[in-house]
């Protein structure tokens, strides 16, 4: 088995991570930007190209591996997280990235997602959330808003949607972040942080499906509304947003409230973002209201939460090493012989 750790001598560029395969997403799809940002950060993460593996499931986003000049597998619907778990358990030195969509990771593959997160394999799960089924041509997804009219729900969907980050936090993910296709710099930052995190990273990326669900995230991405609707989190900085950066979030008791800085509220009294605060992370993930409702909270973007916990693959390897250190390497003859034998002459 190869455990190549050669440092790539030449400096790679984003182009080195592109393949000769024609990219076949619909023109204008948010996936193009995500692909570009992933290709941009790859040369800088310090991992030789041959040690990077991208595993995907099924759906528009899952075509991703074909366009990345690394090792890759376009697997079956919902199972990328489980395949990645087996790969990482077997080859801990590899940098494993999972590309999935809202249907792939939270509907058909929901079970594997939560179990991978609790086991904390050191992998990066990128969920391209477009709140719709694109590849099957427009049915509602587990993140679609209630009452959504789609091909399969002519009278509006009845399902209550998942809150992906709250779900990930509920499964004890050790890194939780949100970004969007239309903010390349922010997305690059989140992807890099995701790679740097040791443990399962859950990255939700708002991705526009311009064919079946165009404008789903418009209020967060368009210049005219972004400043008021999106709240960018930075560790150690107060939660401030708004066109004039004059609105903030404060904690009163156990609840967050929106305050106006021009009303004499001091920035020091605001909620200071702490990525390591599990309880505050719960509140942040719950700032998820319908943007059409009166008095709603802005939607947070950035790294919500990050913590350290032992990774499954490391403890698995440790148990093997410990066994061999104390008992010695297994002896096949001894195993086959067992404890009790008899001779026939």
């Amino acid at each position, binding site marked *: 088995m190869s455990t190549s750790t050669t440092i790539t001598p030449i400096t790679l560029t984003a182009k080195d991570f592109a393949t000769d395969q024609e990219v076949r997403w619909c023109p204008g799809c948010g996936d193009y930007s995500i692909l570009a940002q992933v290709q941009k950060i790859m040369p800088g993460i310090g991992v030789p190209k041959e*040690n990077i593996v991208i595993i995907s499931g099924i759906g528009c986003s899952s075509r991703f591996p*074909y366009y990345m000049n690394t090792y890759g597998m376009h697997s*079956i619907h919902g199972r990328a997280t489980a395949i990645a*778990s*087996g790969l990482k358990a077997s080859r801990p030195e*590899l940098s494993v990235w999972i590309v999935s969509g809202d249907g792939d990771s939270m509907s058909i593959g929901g079970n*594997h997602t939560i179990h991978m997160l609790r086991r904390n394999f050191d992998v990066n799960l990128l969920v391209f959330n477009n709140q719709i089924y694109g590849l099957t041509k427009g049915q509602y997804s587990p993140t679609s808003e209630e009452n959504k009219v789609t091909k399969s729900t002519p009278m509006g969907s009845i399902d209550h949607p998942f809150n992906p980050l709250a779900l990930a936090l509920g499964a004890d993910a050790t890194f939780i972040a949100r970004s969007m296709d239309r903010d390349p710099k922010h997305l690059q930052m989140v992807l890099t942080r995701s790679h740097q995190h040791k443990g399962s990273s859950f990255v939700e990326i708002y991705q526009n499906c311009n064919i079946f669900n165009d404008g789903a995230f418009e209020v967060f991405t368009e210049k005219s509304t972004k400043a008021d609707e999106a709240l960018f989190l930075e560790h150690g900085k107060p939660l401030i947003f708004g066109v004039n950066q004059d609105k903030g979030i404060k904690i009163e008791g156990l609840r967050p409230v929106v305050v106006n800085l021009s009303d004499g509220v001091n920035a020091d009294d605001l909620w200071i973002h702490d990525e390591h605060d599990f309880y505050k992370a719960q509140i942040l993930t719950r700032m998820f209201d319908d943007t059409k409702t009166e008095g709603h909270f802005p939607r947070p973007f950035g790294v919500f939460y990050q913590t350290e916990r032992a990774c499954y693959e490391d403890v698995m390897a440790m148990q093997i090493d410990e066994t061999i250190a104390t008992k010695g390497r297994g002896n096949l003859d001894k195993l086959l012989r067992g404890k009790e034998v008899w001779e*026939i002459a």
Partner: protein
Amino acid sequence: MAANEELLQDVVIKFAGDSGDGMQLTGQQFTNNTALLGIDLATFPDFPAEIRAPIGTLPGVSGFQLHFSSNRVYTPGDIADVLVAMNAAALKVNLKSIKPGGKIIANIDGFDAKNLRLANYPEGINPLEDGSLDSYELIKIDVTKLTRESLKDFTDLGTKERDRAKNMFVLGFIYWMYNRSLENTIEFLKEKFGKKETILQSNIKVLQAGYNYGDTTETFTTRFRVEKAKMNAGTYRSIMGNQALAYGLIAASEKSNLPLFLGSYPITPASDILHELSRHKSFGVRTFQAEDEIAAITSAIGASYGGLFGVTTTSGPGMALKAEAMGLAVMLEIPLLIINVQRGGPSTGLPTKTEQSDLMQAYYGRNGECPMPIIASSTPSDCFDVAFEAVRIAVQHMTPVILLSDGFIANGAEPWKFPKADDLPNIEVAFKTGLAEGEDKFLPYLRDEKLARPWAIPGTAGLEHRIGGLEKQNITGNVNYEPENHQLMVNIRQEKVDRIAQYIPEQKLDSGPEKGKVLVIGWGSTYGAIKSAVLELQAEGHAVSHAHIRYVRPFPKNLGELMQQFDKVLIPEINNGQLIKIIRDQYLIDAQGYHKIMGVPITKQELVDVITKML
């Protein structure tokens, strides 16, 4: 007084009691004791699906049948010479499988009013008292009372704890009956209860009390002895099927230098493979108890993709869940082993009972044209060789392989002349390590003479490539939807599996003449019953032969020719006729079937009767 000793050739004994009575342990101890004397044997543990069905009821009966002999033994026996019945339910369930004139050793305490009622005996009827067992030799022992009495000095123990040692009394008594030493069981108890001195001593005390009871009460004026069997010279041990599968996998891992990865979800009767492999981390074995059957196989796919040997173990219902992922493995063309320890179906079916009804599922149970090699184990020790061989085929032919075992083999035990590590062949593995001279681009679906594609694992510089479940373009492996390419790839995947026939041994006859009247063809756990039946008929001078198929897909290349040498072909199976359909389909021969699907093995006598009618 010293009892006389009578020499017996062949004994079938069945231990039966409530599932909490410790009959499996009793049976296993007696089995080990028997094996260590070089007596040939086969076992058949038969237990309820419930961990503890209501105490004393018919569904709660747990049995352990052991056939031991100074002749060669191939089955656990059709019918018991001796039944140990710990309660009324155990007697009722097993009465039909005791030989007329056989011995019944009954625990009187298990036949009180409550137990009789739970076993559905009519009010006031006790089979131990009403003469209904007159055609048997009935030995009544108040095991509970005698156990309690022998422990009267163990004041630390409550009645419940004392009663738990009942099975040791029975075991001690049987040891006396067959003139055995208590040594190996005392050693076993020391290991099991080493730190709990009182429990250890009380168990030894009861074991000895059972033995002494036989000695002092003159229950039998004769004790029995079975001599060593005439087996091939060598060193033997006792082995169970699931254990042998685990050992075969470890051996293959050692001989291929491929670390083993097992992805598995607990399911009866396959879980013991997971348990066994989890204990052998010193061989670098990675075991992963997945969240479900699908994650179990897909994690194994991830491991094989990474250059380990990925295995998943399951039983029928789990097999159904893994089907899509097997299809992925067929498309990816990577090594993988799927072990199905078959049980009664459909659906949840009969989890603890045996059946051979997943052959069609293994052959055809996936979407698309999705051929996979299939290999089947026939006895507990055969599981070792079959697991080893399955790994060889998977690695050298770059294909997922299905291994079929079943509940009967999984839990059955037999003597095993185990191999030496040095005598096992190496399994050559050739990872592609980089681009060759003059090769400017890696072609992941370029094939060798076996039609196997290169195994290029992540971490290998210059071979970065993408694979997946979409149809592949021949040679390049790129996604391709062209009609001609799909036809070509479907053909290649089939031919790749068919070509394995050139790399496996030809089908041999297990016994019998090369030409004759009837050829009995079997696969899997019917081996022992077919072998015994055919040997018996051969001894009577009939031209009957037996072939047992290990390589079920593809078949050995001479199978058709071999069948042509016989007037008639019989295919007995514990299903409604599955192998027979495939044989008829591939060879257009008028094979006859014998099908029984009752959750129990086919008996020798049934087969003797069926074959006799064909002669």
